[in-house]
């Protein structure tokens, strides 16, 4: 496979590398995916005869914790990239490890939340609020998991590229980071919409 132009070096007239443009295009489609789900929420809630008191059904403290966890993971992610860019693989490893830990923590809290709901017989079939809650946070959680898989790859076998092509590796971390921050942004909207409003 020949090396394609602008995989690592920037194309002058666009100022971009291919992966950089690619990930932003992917995120544009993700905006439409989550946007569709938020639109469904808006329609179903505005058309509902009655709507449960969301903060009474769900745990605001756990969700606040998860918000802090995810925001922290965004900081550690960008610091991991910063470390890689500065040539500090030790910093990269620590911060990427913390990012993974935060991701795992987020999913663990979500598991606790879901388990608690199921234990009380609160299911997607109970009412549309719960259906939306499970679906929207479920789709989000799948995205968190996917991000964690990529991050784990970059921390593990993917890190070998650090030795052969450090710049390309750093760009990969940046692109993974952009995806990860997006997942954080989605949660930033899910949190108030599902828990607080």
């Amino acid at each position, binding site marked *: 496979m020949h090396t394609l132009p602008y995989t690592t070096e920037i194309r002058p007239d666009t100022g971009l590398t291919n992966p950089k443009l690619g990930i932003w295009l992917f995120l544009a489609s993700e905006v439409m995916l989550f946007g569709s789900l938020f639109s469904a929420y808006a329609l179903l809630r505005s058309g509902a005869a009655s709507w449960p008191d969301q*903060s009474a059904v769900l745990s605001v403290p756990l969700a606040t914790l998860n918000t802090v966890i995810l925001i922290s993971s965004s900081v550690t992610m960008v610091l991991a990239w910063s470390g890689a860019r500065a040539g500090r693989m030790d910093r990269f490893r620590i911060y990427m490890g913390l990012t993974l830990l935060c991701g795992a923590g987020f999913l663990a809290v979500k598991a606790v939340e879901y388990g608690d709901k199921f234990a009380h017989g609160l299911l997607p079939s109970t009412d549309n609020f719960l259906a939306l809650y499970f679906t929207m946070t479920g789709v989000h959680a799948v995205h968190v998991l996917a991000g964690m898989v990529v991050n784990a790859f970059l921390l593990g076998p993917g890190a070998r590229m650090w030795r052969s092509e450090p710049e390309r590796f750093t760009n990969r971390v940046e692109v993974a980071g952009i995806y990860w921050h997006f997942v954080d942004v989605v949660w930033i909207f899910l949190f*108030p919409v599902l828990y607080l409003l």
Partner: protein
Amino acid sequence: MTARGYLGVFGALLALTAATVLAASLQLPSSSTMALGLTIATAKATLVALFFMHLKSEKPMVYWPLALAAVLFAALFAFILWTEADHIAIGG
């Protein structure tokens, strides 16, 4: 951006998170809570996008698809509600 800068943004995000939880606990009328919650969320998202995602220094070729997605999301959201408004008993 320096590590210090990132941590500064982190601090702002934590503060805004606290603000949003506080605002919700104030038991304001629901439309105000909604407006406040979404405004704060937008502010947080903007900080993450501009600084963590480096959107502040990105190129036009990235802005255009994102702007298009934003416009189309707004259109999808608004027209669904507008079209179904006649069937919906708002606040019912």
